[in-house]
C-alpha cells in the first residue's frame, strides 16, 4: 500500500527514480539478504534496464546498493571505483526475460564467507521496488516492512508453528506468502511484519524441527 512518501520522496541522487533510486534499493536489499560483505556480484539487466542502464547510471546505482548505500548517498556516482577499493568484483550482463516487469534485474552475490544468494527485483516506479525471487523461490517483498525469510522442509504445521512464535512475541504479520519447489521438498515463507523484530526470535524459529534457515531483513 502506497503512502505519501512513496509519491513525494524519496530524497535521492538523480537522474532516475526507477533506474537510479529503485536500482539502489534493489541492490541494498540484495546486500541485506546476503547479510555480510559482498566480494562478487553478477548483475543481469532485463527490459528497459537492459536498454538504458548506462544512461541512467543504473550500473552505478545497483553496485552502490550492493555496497550498502542508500538512495541519497552522494557517493553513488563513484560506486564503481569504490567497489574496486572495497574488493567487490562485479559483472554486468543483459538478460531476455518473459513475463516480468519492464525494469527487472537479477543479482547473484557471493559474500566474504563464501555464502551465495540470488535475487530478482523490479523497480516499479517512483523509486518503489518489489523483490520477486530470493534464491529461486517466489516472494513478494516491498522492502517497506521488516521481513522474515524462513526456509523449511514442506511438512504439515510449519506455518502454524512459526506464526505462533511471532504472535506470542506480539509481532503482527502484514503480508505472508509461501512457495515450494515440490511437494515435501524445500519451501520458503516470506513474512512481512509491522514494526521491528528482536533478533533473538531468529534462534527460536531456527530451533523448530525441519527449519532450514531463518533470515531477518530490516525495512529499507
Amino acid at each position, binding site marked *: 500500500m502506497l503512502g505519501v512518501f*512513496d509519491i513525494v520522496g524519496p530524497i535521492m541522487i*538523480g537522474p532516475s527514480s526507477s533506474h537510479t533510486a529503485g536500482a539502489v534499493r534493489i541492490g541494498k536489499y540484495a546486500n541485506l539478504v546476503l547479510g555480510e560483505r559482498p566480494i562478487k556480484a553478477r548483475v543481469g539487466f532485463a527490459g528497459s534496464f537492459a536498454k538504458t542502464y548506462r544512461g541512467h547510471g543504473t550500473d552505478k546505482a545497483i553496485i552502490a546498493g550492493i555496497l550498502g548505500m542508500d538512495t541519497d548517498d552522494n557517493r553513488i556516482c563513484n560506486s564503481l571505483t569504490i567497489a574496486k577499493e572495497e574488493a567487490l568484483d562485479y559483472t554486468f550482463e543483459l538478460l531476455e526475460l518473459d513475463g516480468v516487469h519492464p525494469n527487472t534485474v537479477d543479482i547473484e552475490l557471493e559474500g566474504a564467507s563464501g555464502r551465495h544468494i540470488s535475487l530478482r527485483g523490479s523497480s516499479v516506479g517512483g523509486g518503489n521496488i518489489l523483490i520477486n525471487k530470493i534464491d529461486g523461490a517466489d516472494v513478494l517483498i516491498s522492502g517497506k516492512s521488516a521481513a522474515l525469510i524462513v526456509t523449511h522442509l514442506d511438512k504439515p504445521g510449519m506455518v502454524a508453528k512459526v506464526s505462533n512464535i511471532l504472535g506470542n512475541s506480539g509481532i503482527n504479520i502484514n503480508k505472508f506468502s509461501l512457495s515450494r519447489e515440490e511437494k515435501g521438498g524445500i519451501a520458503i515463507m516470506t513474512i512481512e511484519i509491522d514494526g521491528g523484530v528482536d533478533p533473538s526470535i531468529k534462534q527460536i524459529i531456527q530451533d523448530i524441527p525441519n527449519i532450514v534457515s531463518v533470515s531477518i531483513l530490516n525495512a529499507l
Partner: protein
Amino acid sequence: MKYDSISELCRKAEEKNLKISEIVLMDQAALMEKSEEEVKITMKTMLDVMRNSTKEGLNADIRSISGLTGGDAYKMEQRVNAGQSICGPMIGNALIKALSASETNACMGKIVAAPTAGSCGILPSVIMTIAAERKLEDNQLVMALFTASAVGMVIANKASISGAEGGCQAECGSASAMAAAALVELCGGTPAMVEHACAIALKSVLGLVCDPVAGLVEIPCIKRNAMGASNAFVSADMALAGIESKIPIDEVIHAMKVIGDNMNPALKETAEGGLAATPTAKRLMKEVFG
C-alpha cells in the same frame, strides 16, 4: 483511505468541511502510527530538499555527466530578471525553478522524486513560485504537499507513475496534476476545484510518450518539466475561475491507464522510439557512448 478515487477523496473533505491536505495528513499519520506533527516534519525535509533543488541548478556552468544539458535555468533567470519574460514574472519564475531542479537531477545532484526523478522539477517549481508570489508560510507549503501526494497515490493505484509502464504522461503528467492540485489548495480553492484542476492538467498531457534521447533523463525531460509547471498554473487558474472539466478526473485517470497500456514499448522509456529515434538523437547517443 484507499486512494483509488480523487472524487471520493474530495467528497470526503467536503463532508468534513476540511481541506484535502488535512484529511490526508490525518489518515497517513494513523497509518504510519506517528503523530501528525512527526509526519509534517518528515514532509518538511522533503520541502527543504525541493527548495534547494530549485536553486542549485542556477549556475551558468552546470553540466550533466553526459555533457548534453545544463545552463538553461541560468539563461531563463537572466531573461526573467531583466523583465523580458513574455510569460510574465510568475510563469517566468516557475520555468526557472523547474529547469533548475531538473538540471540538478541530470547532474546527479540531490532531488526529491515527485513522483519520479524525471519529473522532479514540476512540484517544487510550482510550490516555491506561488510561495514567493503570495508570501506563503512553509507550513502551508508542507500541507499542500499532502494534497499533491494524495493525487499521486490515486494515479499510481489506478494508472501508473512510471514512464516504463505509462510513458511521460505517467511522470510529467502526474506531477503536473499533483502541482495543479497543490496550487488550487494554496490559492484557497475548494476540493471540487482541485478535482477539476487535476483533470484539466492531465487531459492536456494524455498520450505523452517517454522517449529520452540516449536513454538519459535529460532530453526532452528537462524542458518537459518546465511545460509541466506552466500546465499546472494554467489548469489551476482555469479551475479557480470555476471552469469545470467535462470528463471527471477518475475517468481521465482510467483513460490514462488504457493509453499507457496501449502505448508501444518503443515509446515507454526504452529509448527506441519518438525523439530518441531521430537522427540527431542517434548522433548525440554516439557522442556520449561512442
